[in-house]
């Protein structure tokens, strides 16, 4: 609730949005990005009036602490005490899954951002759930699109838990579709300090490309370089995450990979506005990985309300949102009818040294279109 700007009393005529995100704990920087993006998104979409379809729009941020129990409690508090009409969130997939059943129960639409687990719009799907965030399969499709070609030999390295397995599996599928050949799949303890054995095995498998799915701070980059993986003719590819992680990727300069957002990549008005306003508001900082996502979620909210003309009843919203397209900093997104996943563009990049910063930055190689990265439908 740090940001209930423009909120002035009367609730009858206002529409309320509850945003769940991690403001403390390991994911707090993600939470902050989402929060800033969402605030700016609201401003952009309403031209600063904070009104849609003649109604005031109010929003509340709640900290899930990256704990499903807290997430659920906060969601309840939003739904009951604040009587929000729409939920947005959250930074972790676990938290999100603990909340989506509530959306169904209360018959309110929930826009998932930036949690990426496939199951949210897959096996655990319910009608009230929409997602502006990309899911793991989209990441994978983007990664595959960036490197896979007929006959290319690929290997994967991923952390040994759901996120890693989902990501690797989706990548392999997508890459094999493009004609690539899988030569090795490697999973490493997420908390490991030593990746020698894993890297050793990959080297032995002699792939052309090594696709690394990694999240969390304990990165394998140093060791990949130290073990001279690239010298042995293996190209490393991975997703480029938020700015804070870029310095640690310095050893990987030259790598081809993909990202879902970096502020210089998308070329459209919304993004230009975002960059400018973000710098203005936040000490000259540029928007980061999930800032665009937060903004997209806000834009989706506003677009949907405009479409229903202020009616936030769950069913009405669902009908309006299915198939809805809306403009975001990442180009036009569309909620796919079948599983409510927003199809969106992603970016194939190379990591290059920059003059401006002392860390490497992703440079656009090619925009991967929404169709190209469309994930399989998994909720049937």
């Amino acid at each position: 609730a740090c940001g209930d700007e423009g909120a002035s009393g009367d609730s009858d005529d206002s529409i309320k949005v509850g945003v769940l995100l991690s403001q403390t704990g390991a994911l707090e920087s993600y939470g902050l990005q989402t929060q800033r993006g969402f605030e700016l998104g609201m401003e952009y979409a309403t031209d600063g009036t904070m009104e849609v379809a003649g109604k005031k729009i109010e929003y509340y941020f709640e900290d899930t602490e990256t704990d499903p129990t807290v997430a659920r409690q906060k969601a309840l508090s939003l739904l009951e005490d604040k009587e929000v009409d729409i939920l947005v969130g959250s930074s972790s997939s676990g938290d999100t899954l603990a909340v989506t059943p509530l959306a169904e129960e209360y018959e309110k639409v929930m826009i998932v951002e930036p949690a990426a687990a496939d199951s949210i719009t897959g096996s655990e799907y319910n009608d009230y759930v929409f997602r502006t965030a990309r899911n793991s399969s989209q990441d994978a499709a983007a990664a595959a699109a960036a490197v896979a070609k007929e006959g290319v030999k690929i290997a994967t390295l991923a952390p040994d838990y759901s996120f890693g397995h989902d990501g690797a599996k989706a990548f392999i599928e997508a890459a094999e579709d493009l004609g690539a050949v899988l030569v090795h799949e490697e999973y490493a303890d997420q908390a490991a300090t030593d990746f020698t054995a894993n890297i050793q095995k990959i080297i032995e498998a002699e792939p052309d490309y090594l696709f690394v799915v990694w999240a969390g701070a304990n990165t394998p980059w140093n060791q990949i370089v130290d073990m001279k993986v690239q010298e042995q003719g293996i190209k490393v590819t991975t997703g480029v995450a938020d700015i804070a992680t870029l310095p640690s990727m310095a050893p990987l300069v030259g790598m081809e990979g993909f990202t879902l957002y970096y502020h210089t990549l998308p070329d459209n008005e919304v993004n230009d506005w975002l960059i400018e306003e973000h710098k203005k508001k936040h000490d000259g900082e540029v928007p980061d990985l999930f800032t665009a996502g937060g903004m997209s979620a806000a834009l989706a909210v506003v677009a949907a309300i405009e479409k229903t003309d202020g009616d936030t009843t769950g069913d009405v919203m669902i009908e309006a949102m299915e198939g809805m397209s809306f403009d975001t900093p990442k180009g036009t997104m569309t909620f796919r009818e079948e599983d409510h996943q927003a199809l969106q563009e992603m970016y194939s990049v190379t990591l290059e040294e920059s003059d401006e910063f002392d860390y490497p930055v992703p440079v656009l190689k090619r925009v991967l279109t929404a169709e190209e990265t469309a994930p399989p439908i998994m909720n049937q």
Partner: protein
Amino acid sequence: MDLVFSLLINGLATGMLIFLLAAGLTLIFGLMDVLNFAHGGLFIWGAYTGVWFYQMSDSFLLAIMVSIITGLLLGLITEKLIVRPVYGNHIQQILITLGFMLVLQELIKVVFGPDQKAVFPPGWLQGSFMVGDIVIIKYRLFIIVLGFLVFFLIFFILKRTRIGLIVRAGVIDKEMIQSLGINIRFVFMLVFMVGAAMAALSGMLHAPYSGVIYAEMGLEFSILAFIVVVIGGMGSFTGSLFAALLVGLAQAFMAYYFPALSLAVNMLLMATVLIFRPQGLFRVKG
């Protein structure tokens, strides 16, 4: 053969890193019997202050000194304010040190910001060289050497002086050791400070190894340290070294030969050791 060798070297390096981490806890938990859950806090503070200085001054060795000083100071504060009132009472130790751990961890974010920080080894320790077909990473060699240095240093201090003896006696019967004319409070404080300094040092050394530091890493690693101290045998320095190397090697080899079990390797190792040697690998002897 090359492979085995390479796994061996890297396992050793990991083990040594774990040993450095556990060495401080061997003093504080193993010897002084304090369940110090704030150990991870000392570890991250060492890492952050060291790295901060390293990035400012570009001098890795000085940065190591800075982290040691941080450790000493924090150790002093921790001992005086947090641990002193609860010697001998495990239950209170758990609560108060966990509380302090939370404070230390959050303060990191206040002072240094919540984002992770990337760290690289200094130029002279960057990269690797090949011996035959074996890749040897310089920084790891450095860790192995330093690990042995620390081990021998502390080992000789404990052996050559009565400090180790006094601490062990003081833990068993504080009154009696005082009646023998020893200011046990002061001794405990010193030992605690050294333990804290070692935690801080290992934090600093760990930073370039893993490439990044972040506030939450403290708690993760302190559990590992507890495991090592216990399976090594409470209070045994040699035991900790062996246990740490064992953990490091087990991780390396399991990851290669039984990757499916690598998540469970620490726990399996600990369970096996404790079921077959309930007192840990080494027992404290004179």
